[in-house]
Each structure stands twice: as C-alpha cells, then as structure tokens.
C-alpha cells in the first residue's frame, strides 16, 4: 500500500499540471501582497466605511501579516477547489484516458486499494497545497507586513461587526482554520475522484467538479431569505467557509472579546461533521461504483 502511494505521489510530482496549481497560488498571493503593500489603505477605507467618522485608527498597523493572510484566504479558498479538482478529477479518468487504468487494474491489488491510494494522493496534494498557501500567505505576509492585532470585518445576519483579536491570540486560530480548510478541500477532492470514476477523460470530471462548486457557491451567496433558510443548509459549499468561524472570537457581556475563545464552536463542529459526512458519502459511492465498474477504456 505504501509503495502504491509512493508511486501515485511520484506520478503527481512528475506532471506539469501539478505545478500549475502551485504557480497559480504563488502568483495570486504575491499580487495580493504587492497590491496591499502599495495601497492597502483604500481597502481599509472600504471596510471601515463611516467608522472613520467616529474613530481614529492607525491603518498601517491594521494592515499586518495576520490581516493579509485572512484577506488572501478569503479570496484564495474560493479558487483552490478548482486546483484541487484539477488533480482529483483526473485521478481515475486520467488513467483511463491514457490507457494505464487497465494496466494498473491487472496488477495484484484490489480496486478499493487502488482507489484509496488515489484518494490519499489527492488528499496529500491538497495538504501540500494548503501548506504552501500557509507559507506564502501567512508566514511571508508576516515577514513583509509584520505581526499585530487582527481586525475581522464581518457581516453577521443584519449586523456588521469589526472584531479585534490580540496578536498573541491569532496563530492558533490559523492552524485550526487551515485544518478546517483541509477537511473542506478534501470534500472537493473526493467529489473529483467520485466523478472521475465515471469518466474516461479528465476534462469532464474536472469541469463538472468546478461547475458544481461554482454553482453551489453562487447559490449560497444569493442572499435571499428563502434560499438562506431552505437551500443553503443543503449545499456543502455553505460549510466550506466555516474556517472563518475560528476568527469569530467569543464576546463577553460587556462586548469585549474573550481571549482564546470562539463565538460558536458547536456551529463549526457541526459544519465539520457535515463536511466529513460528505467525504464519507462521496467516497462510499466512488468505492461502490469503482468496484462494480467494467473497465472498457
């Protein structure tokens, strides 16, 4: 099994497509950092709106490494599913397309073993991608912009809020958020693998995965009460932004943030459970179908 995984990772590592993902992320993050270094104040003004009428604030302090990482993740974690599906959607279908699937399947392994290894490889790819994102968007941002308290601009129901998290209370939230993002992206990876079981070229499942994610994300953001109430809870993309929950700091009766606390841990936990249930369901269907499938490619 381990050698199978090594082989899968070797194959992924030798494909130019793999590095497209890393290059895309590097480019996006660097552009963000450059833009905010050059003119982060405009963004701050947009987010602060009329708060500046009542308060003075050192905006250059507010645009720090922690804040940058949040802004970058906010955008990037919408795009990363595309990159994950690029690898996951290709897992089985790509082999079918190349004609290597039939070769693999005549080797002395169970199909479920092979599929599991494919899943593991896609999962590890996702993790590598996230680690790379973390290095660039968090650690490089900290190097460029320094560390300070973090401001979160948030819309909660009908309310808008600005949360301030102390500098020494941020890092663990990022580790938790990246952990959560890993689970969320694994849902995409398993969806990609599931779709790739049914296809004989890699374009189909990749495009299908991306379309599903885009479609769900757009529906999630329509912001009409009837959809918020009856549709949103059924879309897994709703839960993919749950990593932000780690930055919604708990507030005491006086309106002060409580260091080290979370506003709504049960909501994050439930979202995690829902995401993991998606992973299990997608994988289950994928395993069942792959086991039964006649390999005609």
């Amino acid at each position: 099994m381990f050698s199978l995984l090594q082989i899968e990772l070797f194959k992924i590592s030798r494909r130019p497509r793999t590095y497209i993902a890393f290059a895309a992320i590097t480019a996006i993050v660097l552009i963000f950092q450059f833009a905010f270094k050059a003119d982060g104040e405009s963004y701050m003004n947009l987010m602060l709106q009329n708060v500046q009428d009542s308060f003075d604030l050192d905006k250059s302090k507010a645009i720090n490494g922690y804040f940058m990482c949040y802004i970058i993740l906010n955008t990037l974690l919408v795009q990363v599913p595309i990159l994950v599906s690029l690898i996951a959607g290709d897992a089985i279908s790509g082999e079918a397309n190349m004609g290597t699937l039939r070769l693999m399947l005549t080797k002395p392994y169970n199909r479920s073993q092979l599929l599991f290894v494919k899943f593991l490889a896609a999962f590890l790819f996702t993790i590598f991608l996230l680690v790379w994102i973390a290095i660039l968007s968090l650690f490089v941002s900290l190097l460029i912009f320094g560390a300070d308290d973090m401001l979160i601009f948030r819309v909660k129901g009908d309310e808008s809020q600005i949360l301030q998290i102390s500098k020494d209370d941020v890092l663990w939230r990022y580790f938790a958020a990246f952990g959560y993002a890993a689970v969320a992206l694994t849902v995409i990876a398993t969806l990609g693998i599931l779709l790739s079981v049914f296809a004989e070229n890699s374009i189909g499942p990749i495009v299908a995965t991306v379309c599903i994610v885009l479609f769900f994300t757009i529906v999630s953001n329509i912001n009409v009460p009837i959809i918020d109430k009856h549709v949103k809870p059924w879309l897994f993309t709703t839960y993919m932004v749950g990593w932000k929950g780690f930055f919604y700091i708990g507030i005491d009766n006086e309106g002060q943030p409580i260091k080290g606390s979370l506003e709504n841990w049960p909501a994050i936990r439930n979202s995690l459970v829902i995401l993991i249930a998606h992973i299990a369901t997608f994988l289950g269907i994928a395993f069942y179908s792959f086991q039964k499938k006649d390999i005609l490619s």
Partner: protein
Amino acid sequence: MIKNSTSLLLLLLLFNQQIFAQDINVLLANIKTKMSKIKDYEAEGQMKTKVVFLKLPVAAVKLYFKNPSKFKLKTSKGISFIPKGAVNVNMNSLFNEHNFTVIDAGTDNINNVKVRVAKLLPNDDNSNLVLSTLYIDPVNLLIIKNKTTTKENGTYELMMNYNKYSSYGLPDEILFSFNTKDYKLPKGLTFDFDDQSAKNPLSKTNKASKGEVKITLNKYSINKNLSDEFFK
C-alpha cells in the same frame, strides 16, 4: 456638648450655603487655579470600548498632557480605535483654549453628590465648541460631569470619578459617551460563514447608536517636565 455640636452643624450649614451661593465665576476660577498647578502629566491606564459593532479588547493607554493645551492619547501596543472626541477627556485644556461666557444653571444631583451646573458658551463664533456644560462638585472643586456639543463631532458626555489624584483634580476613571453612526458592510463583500445563529430584528433602531469608552487610570506622573516628543 449639645451646644457644641449644634454650633458645628450650624457652622457647616453656613459654610455649605456659602459654597452653593458662591458666584459661579469664582468657583470656576478656583478650579482653574487648582488645575494650573499641573504643568504636565503622564498617565497610564486601560481603555475599554463599548460600541455595538466594535468588539475590541481592553487596550493599555497612556495619556500625555502639557500646559497649556497639548494632549495625546496613545495606546501602548496593538491596534486601537480612538474616538474622535477623545481629546476632550482632558479638562485641563478647556480653560486655556477658550474664552467663555458662563451661565449659572443652578444645582443638580449626580450620584448623591450635590453639584453646581455651569454652562459655558465660547465667545468665539468660529469655535468648534458650541456649548459645554460642567457639573461641579463645589466642595472638592472637581468637575464630575461634562456635556459638550461640538460642530464636528456631535455631542458627547464625560463622567469622571476621582480618588487618589483628586487633590490635583485628575480623575481615576473617565467614562466617555458619544454618538456613532451605524456600521453596515454590504452583504456578500465578506463571504462570511453563516452559522444561522444571527437572528436579530432589532437592527432597525440601530441607525445611530451610543458608544462608550471607559478609561481607567491607575498611575499619574505629574510635573515631570514631559518632553514635547510625546505629542508628535
């Protein structure tokens, strides 16, 4: 014994009446004299902000003042939201900056302390200050409450508690209340995680809300020849 105590009570009563009958201008002049003993000070303390849309941790702050009207409020670390009218928490500059017409507005009662009320109207028509109402404890010569209306920053209110530094007329606690505008981000700008927990129909009344900043000061260094560096 009885006679003695009666005469003491009488004496106190007389004294009291005298104080409350005192001309308001004289009272203010006394306060000014008391304040003028302070050439500069540096104070350390905490600032707690209570605004409905701002969730900020308690900030460590430092206050700097230098005669006649230099004042600075600084936070020692982290990001801080400092209310625009916060310069006015320093009463020491008030008399140095403006010339007023003073109106005696009688007496009032604040936290069981009987106070004299003085309304100060700046003589300069172009002044940002429109009206400042002082609530003064005439016995201890302390300003307990101040209500100020400005052209630019609206109306705000100061409540001051005195303890250790009352002899200097410097408060241990300042409660600064002000009006803030409603903060509203466009939906969809932030792609937030909706945990379905936010159900608040009260937002309609929220158009303009009150903000509060409570500054607790626990250490003053007074007349230590503060450098001008701090006011940059």
